[in-house]
């Protein structure tokens, strides 16, 4: 779709989904407030380019780029008014075209400018404190590249992930790696040999790559090849100057460096995706050896805090689709999966039933998928003809189908997600299954109820009426 961030921003502008903020502001608290405010516009909010930050004259900052479903649809190459369910099915379709093509280019734009001496990240990047009680200035939207040190030529094992990064000195950053992250596998192999792990922190990349970098993929699946497959164009890469790492050729900024082996430093707190602050922990330290960037680079960062924020949109459909695919493998009756809420802590599944009680089996299947084991704690089931992305329909199912005595099941003592404030002790959880489907035989159906049928051609006329409406605006 888009080769890099600039192409995407150009398209957003063309579609009326990008605004410029030229008034002079302070880094804090103004950038935070602009991010929050643009986010709160909702599903049609624009991206914002800020270009007049006090002390950072001449530097450009892009925020809220993935901040609305309208921008998300444009990223997918779809009409900006496309509803969520249609975006979900489109993504699910394109998912199967993996792997896409990779292409290596020379003289990459991301290396137009190279800084190797006197690196000072506080002066190169227009940094700012995202939430008031964060421990410092964070890079919240970086695509971070590492290789498997024991298999460096295997591009499928090269990992591109989004991990939070705290700037902790002019050429020093700390990064949160959790034990289940792919980068932790690379790091373990390097640290066992007391070797530094080369790392590239890429800022401002093609929006689909940002999207894939935050998708839970298998260890040997390539984020680059997924981005290429879903974009339908080759992913253009180039080699780092100092390391054998592949980075997006069109990245705005690349920080090349290495993780210092066997060292952990004080990092956090940081306002995280559940809407609460993480604690202060000891995390890995990275020395930045080189900064490369495009001329007139755009620094892209993301706001996260009390949901709904940009991260909820960014982690939305890429959480839904893998779960949908995994369920569908053995349970073709599943129609759609909405795992938009806090990276899938709450999941709504629309499914037909093969026989009585089947919806509960679907829930248990979800609870044993790799992501579902620790995340999916509230599992809601609705009939296959209910749109799980339309909460009015979901609440209708709640109101008219749930029999509290048998449709709400609590499974205590299961794995949990440590960043979930309700996970106690962190890492432990409780699964709740709420079955809001219509009972079917051989389950006893107490009363014969006939649902009002769906209205034929309503979707067709919805589009026509919406078009007529937009013409008079």
């Amino acid at each position, binding site marked *: 779709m888009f080769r890099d961030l600039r192409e995407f921003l150009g398209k957003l502008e063309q579609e009326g989904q990008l605004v410029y903020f030229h008034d002079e502001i*302070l*880094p*804090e*608290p103004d950038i935070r407030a602009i991010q929050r405010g643009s986010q709160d516009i909702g599903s049609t909010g624009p991206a914002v380019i800020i270009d007049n930050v*006090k*002390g*950072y*004259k*001449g*530097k450009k900052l892009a925020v809220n780029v993935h901040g609305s479903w309208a921008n998300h649809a444009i990223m997918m190459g779809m009409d900006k008014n496309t509803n969520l369910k249609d975006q979900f099915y489109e993504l699910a379709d394109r998912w199967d075209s993996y792997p896409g093509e990779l292409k290596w280019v020379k003289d990459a734009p991301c290396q137009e400018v190279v800084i190797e001496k006197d690196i*000072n990240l*506080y*002066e*190169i990047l227009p940094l700012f*404190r995202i939430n*008031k*009680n964060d*421990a*410092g*200035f964070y890079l919240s939207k970086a695509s971070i590249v590492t290789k498997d040190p024991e298999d460096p030529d295997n591009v499928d094992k090269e990992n591109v992930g989004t991990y939070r990064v*705290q*700037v*902790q*000195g*002019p050429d020093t950053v*700390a990064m*949160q*790696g*959790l*034990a289940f*992250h792919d980068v*932790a596998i690379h*790091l*373990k192999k390097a*640290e*066992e*040999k*007391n070797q530094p792990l080369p790392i590239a922190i890429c800022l401002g990349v093609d929006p689909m790559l940002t999207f894939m970098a935050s998708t839970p993929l298998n260890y040997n699946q390539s984020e680059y090849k997924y981005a290429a497959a879903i974009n339908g164009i080759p992913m253009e890469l180039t080699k780092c100057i100092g390391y054998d790492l592949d980075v997006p050729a069109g990245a705005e900024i690349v920080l090349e460096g290495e993780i210092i082996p*066997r060292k*952990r*430093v*004080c*990092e956090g*707190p940081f306002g995280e995706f559940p809407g609460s*602050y993480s*604690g*202060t*922990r*000891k*995390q*890995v330290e990275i020395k930045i050896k080189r900064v490369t960037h495009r001329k007139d680079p755009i620094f892209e960062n993301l706001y996260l805090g009390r949901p709904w924020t940009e991260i909820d949109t960014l982690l939305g459909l890429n959480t839904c689709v893998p779960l949908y695919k995994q369920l569908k493998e053995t349970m073709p009756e599943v129609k759609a999966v909405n795992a938009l809420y806090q990276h899938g802590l709450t999941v709504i599944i629309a499914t037909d039933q093969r026989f009585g009680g089947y919806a509960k089996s679907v829930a248990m299947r979800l609870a044993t998928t790799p992501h579902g084991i620790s995340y999916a704690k509230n599992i809601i089931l609705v009939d296959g003809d209910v749109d799980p992305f339309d909460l009015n329909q979901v609440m209708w199912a709640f109101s008219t189908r749930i029999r509290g005595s048998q449709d709400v099941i609590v499974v205590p003592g299961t794995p949990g997600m*440590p960043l979930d404030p309700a996970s106690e002790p962190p890492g432990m959880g409780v699964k709740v299954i709420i079955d809001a489907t219509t009972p079917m035989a051989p389950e006893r159906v107490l009363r014969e109820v006939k649902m009002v049928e769906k209205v034929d051609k309503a979707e067709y006329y919805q589009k026509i009426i919406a078009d007529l409406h937009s013409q008079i605006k």
Partner: protein
Amino acid sequence: MKCVRCLHGDAHKVAEAPDGSGAWEVYLCDRCNYSWRSTEEEDVINPEKRDPWFQLDKVDLDTLQIPCPIPPLVK
């Protein structure tokens, strides 16, 4: 210089506004890695006004959790 979070004297200036305007300076604590800008809100940069929940002056930094543990060396 005193860190506004851990209150130890390990903080120092790490940056000035790069456009030469003198609009602000950035400070960093080498002990707890807290950083702040001179122009931030009082309840961020003034220890008296900061939310005590986020202060680290009574916390032993050596006992903090390590979410990504260091593996044993392998020859």
